[in-house]
């Protein structure tokens, strides 16, 4: 495997809330290799956006981050001050947010915003930065790029705005791009185009990509590796084929049963469902986080800490007391709630 760009060990994020300490992210480990795409998938509130924000050190003030290892490109991110972090942001790591209307500044032209990133981090003049901006706008499929530099975000459609965001993230050729639900606010047709574009650019610039989404369709089509997140923990990690073809954790299995798949799910038939709601993450939690909603729950799930274990292959891991054999049998069984 290639040299990892990002290495994370035991990342935790705690948020102070009136009722105690909300453990939003608990002991997460992962690494991303050069040119690799990791998808973090989960439902709202599972901690996927907080994970991304914690890497950028953009957490709200009530949140604290801790980690045993947090290396970007061989550099330790722990203990970096605000000035050092802002040297990295937009330079070595860039983020694409969900809603391009709120993440672009409405008071500045897109040309201004694109050039700013480069002028902040590289010792270049306006002309050079502008050329780079035009080059990238054309790369992301915006025609007449030079004329568009003077336009303001409100003059662009949602799809175009998201393209501008992507171009902006590439201005300094970062080693890592974090895309947090980049296509959720867009139409299906535009979504396909944007994802296509992201994949092409990732290959062309050999950038690593962390894509955060709740849409399993996107994950299956874009990711090299997948991490399924539930209630602050990774419950299953592996290559896309391992996770989608042999889902092991009951939560992953449940999620895959929930979505109608044209051609596969019989029309009008009941879809699978995951009963119950996400547990409250305030305070210490005993046992498996998914136990209250799991259909295979038994006594061993209720206490202690459930560790990640390897499935049939070492690279495919899941957090459950059940053995790989039992899980494989469960994934084939048809469960209709």
């Amino acid at each position, binding site marked *: 495997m290639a040299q990892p760009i990002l290495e994370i060990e035991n990342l935790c994020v705690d948020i102070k809330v009136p009722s105690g300490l909300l453990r939003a992210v608990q002991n997460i480990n992962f690494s991303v290799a050069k040119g690799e795409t990791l998808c973090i998938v989960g439902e709202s509130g599972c901690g996927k956006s907080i994970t991304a924000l914690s890497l950028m050190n953009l957490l709200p003030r009530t949140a604290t981050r801790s980690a045993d290892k947090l290396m970007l490109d061989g550099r330790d991110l722990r203990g970096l001050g605000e000035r050092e972090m802002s040297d990295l942001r937009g330079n070595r790591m860039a983020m694409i947010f969900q809603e391009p209307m709120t993440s672009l500044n409405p008071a500045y032209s897109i040309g201004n915003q694109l050039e700013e990133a480069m002028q902040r981090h590289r010792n270049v003049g306006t002309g050079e930065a502008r050329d780079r901006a035009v080059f990238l706008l054309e790369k992301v499929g915006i025609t007449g790029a030079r004329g568009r530099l003077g336009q303001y975000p409100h003059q662009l459609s949602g799809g175009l705005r998201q393209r501008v965001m992507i171009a902006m993230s590439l201005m300094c050729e970062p080693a890592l791009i974090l895309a947090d639900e980049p296509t959720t606010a867009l139409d299906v047709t535009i979504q396909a185009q944007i994802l296509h574009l992201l994949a092409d650019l990732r290959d062309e610039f050999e950038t690593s990509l962390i894509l955060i989404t709740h849409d399993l369709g996107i994950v299956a089509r874009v990711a090299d590796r997948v991490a399924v997140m539930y209630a602050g923990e990774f419950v299953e990690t592996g290559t896309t084929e391992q996770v989608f073809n042999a889902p092991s954790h009951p939560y992953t299995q449940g999620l895959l*049963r929930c979505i109608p798949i044209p051609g596969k799910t019989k029309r009008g038939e009941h879809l699978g469902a995951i009963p119950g709601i996400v547990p409250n993450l305030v305070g210490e939690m005993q046992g498996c986080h998914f136990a209250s909603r799991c259909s295979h729950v038994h006594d061993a799930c209720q206490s202690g800490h459930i560790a990640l274990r390897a499935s049939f292959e070492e690279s495919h891991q899941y957090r459950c007391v059940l053995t790989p054999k039992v899980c494989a049998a469960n994934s084939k069984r048809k469960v209709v709630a």
Partner: protein
Amino acid sequence: MSDPVIEVSDVTRTFMISAGFMRGKKPLHAVNGITLDVERGEVLGIVGESGCGKTTLAKMMLGLLPPTSGTLRLDGKAVGSADRIEVARILQPIFQDPYSSLNPRKSIGDIIMLPLRVQNDPNPETWQSRAEAIMDLVGLPKRVINNFPNQLSGGQRQRVAIARALINRPKIVICDEPTSALDVSVQSQILNLLQDLRSEFNLTYVLISHNLAVVEHMATRVAVMYLGRIVEQADTETLFKSPRHPYTEALLGSVLTPVPGLGVPDTHLGAAYPNPIDPPSGCTFHPRCAKVMDHCSNQVPPTIGANGTMVECHLYADGLGQKAKGKKTRKGKRK
């Protein structure tokens, strides 16, 4: 067999949009001459990109917006002339965002019973028990009857919206993106519930969604909208198996099924959605169409077919029987 509960004939809705300071106003044809029948007992899916007029059409069906021209008939009566309360008895909506469609200052019980109050139901003493019965049916615990919307989760709120829609036994429910604000695991619960209620109450659904997988799963017939027009209508099976209009093909091509290794499809839709104030000439889809021909840019395409199966495209000028050229290009794309 034809027994339409909603008949939409040649309906147009035009909004006047300011073209800029001191420049007067320009017309925007949000819905531009739509003819559509909703048959009793069917689930009609309406799909299309944002801005194509899906919601405007739904609002006109609900009588919330008067059409600029054309008529809508509900159970044989014209929607405009009929009493609003009369319409509400037959037709109820479920909206997209359960966070903004419920009054935050009313209790769940009040919200669910409101239709009975508005419709002057003659037996107020039964309201409470009917509300409890319908809550039970949609899977809400009885104890939340005195709670307020902010105390419920998104899925529970959408159940409240469904209970409110169904309490006075309407015949038709218009669901405008009923699950797009919800998580996948909650989405499947709501879809299952809608399926169950449909058989229980003998309902007709108009299901508006941009999620084609959901439409494929729920709908019996699908209408595809583009820039205020319905460009294709067919029963679900036909539409998903052999789409006729190039736009439908592109839409289906952009559905991302969770199958690893297929990669992201290229829809070849290229240019962005056109400005609806200044729509392209001829066929409004021609700047984005993969099978564009010379006369597409200056001739409005004919409507071919009738009775719920139609397509509006020059490719089919010789009739629906003829399969489109270039059909092979889609082979192997969807599994």
